[in-house]
């Protein structure tokens, strides 16, 4: 029912209230004006009534003189009559009543009759009586008029009082309503908004209701709502940022912890690597020494076998000599015995050498096993180092290269030890064979000795025996040749082993160098990360 433009804003509300109160005020003012007009009208009427009373009183005086004409001169009758006529006419006019006018007309008529009758005494008395009656009626009319005036006045005052009181009561009611409503519409929302602002409570139900209003309070409520929305957004943004920052801090912390742990592990690995490199170096040095020793023994054995071969040849030639020169058998037998003893001595030495060789080979095998183990551990460590380097990312790239080098070295070491092991197996089997052959050589030499000893006593069986001796010697020569061949191969293998051991020494010294490099890289990394962390 309201016009579209009415939005209940304060100015529009004021216009409505002003219209309501203005209507009542205009009504009140109109009543006041009408009342003033009516009062002035009544006053004028009262004034006229008062004048009428005065005229009546004047006429009364003249009438009294008229009633007693004898006491005075005749001339005065006419003047009194004129006065009464004038007074009566005025009175009637002032009363303004038709009745009063009729009465006054009658009175004037009577006055004329009285004037005429003054010449006759009887007529005079009658006229005077009638005039007196008329005058009394006129006085009554005057009193009635005054009474009517009073009643009108009283009525006017009562109506005015009632009207004004009702209008004032209504105005009071409207004013009270305005106060109550404006308190509800203006003061209460403002107080509420102030409390909402103070508490920062955006979920107020009253605020949501107020936001639907189209007036200033509605605009304020909406502004407050959007303000709270903005504040909430900002708080959310701050919270998010805080979360992101704390997450970043936690990650950095974690990274730092992991970096420290990584540094520790790398340092440990490097330490162990250095230990292994040192141990490997000393082991390879031992290997070289043992290989040199073995080579020396092998050379000695070769020489011994060479000499055995020579001695066996001498035995063979001696036996040939025995066969050809049967005459000097005793001497030759003696010499044979001597030669056999020398041969036994030499064979014994060769046997010792072979045993020493076997022993050396076993020792080498132990050393190789140690080197192999060390190489395997180094390989494992290099793998560990590679993994740690990968975890460290960009910073561990230096380690990755070094670890790869270490791993390659370990692989090469392992391969070299395999080579040595292969050579060593050859040595071992060769030395076993040497021992067998030496044992058989000893048997043969002992047989030669026995045969030589029995030559003297059993000359007759010399022919047959010398044949056996020949075959045995041939066997011995064959054995010795094989023995010499084996020894040559052993010497070659020992040389290979020595070469391999030298390679191992070189590799282990390289390993030490790489470990030192690794340590340097780790120290640099530690220093860098500590500087970054600080």
């Amino acid at each position, binding site marked *: *029912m*309201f016009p579209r433009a*009415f*939005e*209940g804003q304060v100015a529009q*509300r004021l216009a*409505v209230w002003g219209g*309501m109160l203005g*209507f009542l005020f205009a*009504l009140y003012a*109109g*009543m006041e004006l*009408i*009342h003033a007009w*009516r009062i002035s009208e009544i006053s004028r009427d009262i004034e006229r009534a008062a004048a009428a009373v005065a005229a009546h009183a004047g006429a009364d005086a003249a009438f009294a003189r008229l009633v007693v004409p004898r006491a005075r001169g005749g001339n005065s009758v006419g003047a009194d009559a004129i006065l009464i006529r004038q007074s009566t006419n005025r009175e009637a006019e002032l009363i303004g009543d038709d009745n009063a006018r009729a009465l006054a007309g009658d009175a004037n008529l009577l006055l004329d009759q009285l004037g005429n009758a003054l010449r006759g005494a009887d007529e005079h008395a009658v006229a005077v009586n009638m005039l007196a009656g008329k005058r009394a009626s006129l006085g009554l009319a005057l009193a009635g008029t005054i009474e009517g005036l009073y009643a*009108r006045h009283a*009525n*006017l005052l009562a*109506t*005015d009082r*009632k*009207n004004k009181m*009702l*209008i004032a*009561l*209504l105005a009071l*009611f*409207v004013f009270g*309503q*305005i106060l109550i*409503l404006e308190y*509800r*519409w203006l003061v209460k929302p403002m107080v509420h908004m102030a409390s909402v602002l103070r508490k920062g409570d955006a979920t107020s*139900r009253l605020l*949501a*209701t107020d936001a*639907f*209003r*189209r*007036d200033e309070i*509605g605009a304020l409520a909406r502004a407050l709502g959007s303000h709270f929305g903005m504040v909430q957004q900002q708080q959310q943004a701050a919270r998010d940022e805080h979360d992101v920052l704390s997450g970043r801090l936690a990650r950095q912390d974690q990274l730092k912890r992991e970096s420290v742990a990584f540094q520790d592990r790398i340092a440990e690995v490097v330490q162990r690597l250095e230990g292994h490199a040192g141990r490997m170096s000393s082991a390879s040095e031992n290997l070289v020494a043992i290989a040199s020793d073995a080579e020396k023994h092998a050379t000695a054995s070769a020489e011994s076998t060479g000499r055995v071969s020579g001695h066996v040849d001498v035995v063979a030639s001696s036996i040939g000599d025995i066969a050809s020169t049967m005459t000097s058998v005793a001497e030759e037998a003696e010499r044979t015995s001597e030669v056999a003893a020398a041969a036994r001595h030499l064979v014994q030495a060769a046997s010792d050498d072979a045993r020493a060789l076997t022993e050396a080979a076993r020792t080498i095998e132990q050393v190789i096993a140690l080197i192999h183990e060390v190489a395997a551990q180094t390989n494992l460590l290099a793998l560990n180092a590679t993994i740690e380097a990968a975890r460290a990312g960009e910073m561990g790239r230096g380690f990755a290269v070094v670890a790869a080098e270490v791993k390659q070295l370990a692989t090469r070491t392992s391969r070299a030890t395999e080579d040595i092991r292969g050579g060593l197996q050859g040595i071992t089997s060769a030395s076993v064979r040497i021992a067998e052959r030496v044992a058989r050589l000893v048997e043969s030499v002992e047989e030669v000795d026995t045969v030589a000893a029995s030559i003297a006593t059993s000359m007759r069986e010399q022919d047959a025996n010398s044949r056996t001796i020949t075959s045995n010697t041939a066997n011995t020569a064959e054995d010795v040749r094989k023995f010499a061949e084996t020894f040559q191969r052993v010497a070659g293998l020992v040389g290979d082993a020595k070469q391999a051991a030298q390679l191992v020494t070189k590799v282990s010294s390289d390993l030490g160098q790489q470990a030192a490099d690794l340590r340097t890289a780790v120290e640099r990394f530690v220093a860098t990360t500590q500087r970054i962390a600080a």
Partner: protein
Amino acid sequence: MSMAAGADEDRVRDEAGSALPRYTIRSYRVPAKVFHWVTAALVFFMVASGVTMKQLGEGPFADTLFNIHKTTGVLTLAVVLLRLIYRVIMPDPGADREDYRRPFLHWMLYAALILMPLLGWSGISDFGSRGILFGLELPAIWPEGAGYASFLLETHAYLAFGMLALVALHIGIAMQDHMTRAREAADREG
């Protein structure tokens, strides 16, 4: 005198679960609006003319005002009766809605609008001055000279001021209603 009733908004829970005010929307047909504002103008004119003629008390101007007041009073009664008939024939849009309510104040105003002219008419019937403008005379609805004229007319006058108080309340409540509901109404219309 907005016919916008249901001064209080209903509150419902929306899907999100938060409390949102939902206001009853009323729109009115043009005849209803015309009836409303014509009635309002007549009531204000009746009050002004009644108080003025009473204050004048007597005289030819007062007599003319009396005649005008009586004529306008009959006209007002006719308008209010026509309006009620219109309301019965053409209910408000949305009158079949569950939340449609017509507050007590509206019924009181309707009752006053009918009772006021009847009281005045009875008073003048008793008093014996049923003549109105254009030389017409109203039929008597009360025995002439029954002696209740002053009582009836006094009641008529006091009731007039009481009715004005009701009108003031009505304006206040309608403004309250309009301020909180107008936004959604504008959204719907616009």
